[in-house]
């Protein structure tokens, strides 16, 4: 009989406890006040406590009830999707949509194993053209197209 019955609950529980501690550190300076005159720190303090408690319960449950095992993190989709989005967020204002968007489409497309270069390039061109036409020209959303200089 293994002692740890649900590694998944253990990890989630620890994350919640750490999150509660982290937010508690962030709000420790705020005035808590009383129930009658609640200070800005009142609600956050209560919530940090409650998050900590749920974390502890999950932590305890990991040793009592059998649950899920841990599964692998999917490296390729995570890196490509999140990486593409980060590149877009960093480049949009300095370099403009016409540069940032093709890069976004190309990078995120490689999160899928079957991505082919020609197909991806065509998709990038089509989506950039569509976004420029619909969102910038027609709907006039204030999005920079070209590098700001």
């Amino acid at each position, binding site marked *: 009989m293994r002692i740890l019955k649900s590694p*998944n609950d253990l990890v*989630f529980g620890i*994350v*919640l406890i750490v*999150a509660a501690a982290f*937010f508690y550190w*962030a*709000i420790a300076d*705020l*005035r808590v006040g*009383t*129930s*009658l*005159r*609640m*200070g*800005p*720190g009142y*609600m*956050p303090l209560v*919530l940090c406590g*409650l*998050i900590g408690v*749920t974390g502890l*319960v*999950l932590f305890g*449950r990991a040793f009592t*009830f059998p649950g*899920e095992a841990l599964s692998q993190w*999917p490296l*390729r*989709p*995570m890196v490509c*999707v*999140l990486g593409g*989005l*980060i590149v877009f*967020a*960093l480049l*949009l*204002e300095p370099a403009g949509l016409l540069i940032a*968007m093709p890069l*976004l*489409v190309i990078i*995120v*497309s490689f*999160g*899928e194993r*079957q*991505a082919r270069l020609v*197909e991806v390039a065509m*998709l*990038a061109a089509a*989506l950039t053209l569509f*976004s420029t036409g619909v*969102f910038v020209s027609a*709907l*006039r*959303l204030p*999005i920079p197209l070209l590098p700001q200089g």
Partner: protein
Amino acid sequence: MMDSFSNLFNGLSVALQVQNILYCFGGALIGTLIGVLPGLGPVATIAILLPVTFYLPPVAALVMLAGIYYGAQYGGSTTAILVNLPGESSSIVTCLDGYQMARSGRAGPALGIAALSSLYAGVITVFVMTIFATGLSEMAMHFGAAEYFSLMVLGLVAAVIMAQGSVISALAMVFLGLLLSLIGTDVSSGVQRMTFGMFDLSDGIDFVPLAMGLFAVAEIIKNLAEPEDRIVLKGKIGRLLPNWDDVRRSAPAATRGTILGSFLGLLPGGGPTLGSFAAYTLEKRLSKTPEKFGTGMVEGVAGPEAANNSSAQTSFIPLLTLGIPSNPTMAMMAGAMLIHGIQPGPDVMTKNPDIFWGLIASMLLGNVMLVIINLPLIGVWVSLLKIPYRLFYPAILVFCCIGAYSVNSNPFDIVVMIVFGFVGYAFMKWKAEPAPLILAFILGPLIEEYFRRAMLLSQGNPTTFISRPISFSLLLVSAALIGFTLLSFFRRMQRKEASA
């Protein structure tokens, strides 16, 4: 009562303005599209379109967004029947008998019954809404701070119980959502809370990038990690019209589904998914041949399809009359209303009757349009299902980026979306559903505000929440729900131990 119907009639004249007809059609079309496509739901879609609706008149914007929501209920069943994959979570049960009907060569009638039951439910529900709306908004006039606080607690408790996975993780999601909603400048003291000295956080986290991250980005990572086989049913769909026997069996099922669905849509935490599950269970219970369910029973399509459409519509009522969003999609609708300067709540009906009744009346129109969009044009949707996911998800991400950036013209919102995309995927891995989080995030500032007000009014006496009858009964229901859930949890544990 007669007043309500003359109001509905006035609403119809608003809904029938050319511009509103066009946006209603647009919403119904987009709704069907995202309903058909698995992996993109109404929450993410409404989040993407919110910045665009800013440039529309409020009625047109809300009519369109509502069309997306109930339109998705129509589209979802198409995928369920033809591919055996739910296009939306509310069409999970339609897979059971709908797909079996399709396999035995009756795909056409299955699609026909699904669409016609939805239409039937949609039309009847408009009248149900008309009656309930007036009553509820009159009741809301008697609500004070304590009642609102207790009602929101009930909404969150219901969200916790409805969530898949364990109650304790759902609770954690609620608390996290509430805490995240407090980031930014405190309204009553002007103090910065949890902003870590970042200027971009002083207005708090915007719910649009939050929802996109949790519901779109995280979902895409999950779909890429666990690709699903999409085998579109080959062969002809055949004639769509059901035969007389189908109609005879479906009509009572659709009626029961409508009644059950419209009631479950009104509850906090309720909505189409709950409605469709409950309707399926009901049909199976009432049937003389329950063992045949899962082999292509037409009642198993008609009941749930009627129920999901009617509960999608009635879930607007708590939002429009009490100002309480009962599910994540309604939370997005609340955001849409706030963008246009309309505070959801009992005032909508008196101050903006055009919006209120126009929106409800537009559902009559939208449902008729949806049957036309879904039945004769079924071939278009089937061919859409054949587009591979690898061409489809980069487009979703592009729209998310544009939408997130356009909220404040600030790339920081894209960063927020990325962070919650990562966090949302982690939650999925840990078997915690994001729906309670987003609901709590929307309700958070209101809960704090009403709690504060109730405490001030009662001079710091916490018994105010139980000495006022309406507030007390709302809290009592919440407590009963929690007790009931805990009880069934322990029962299950005992049974497990007994069998082990």
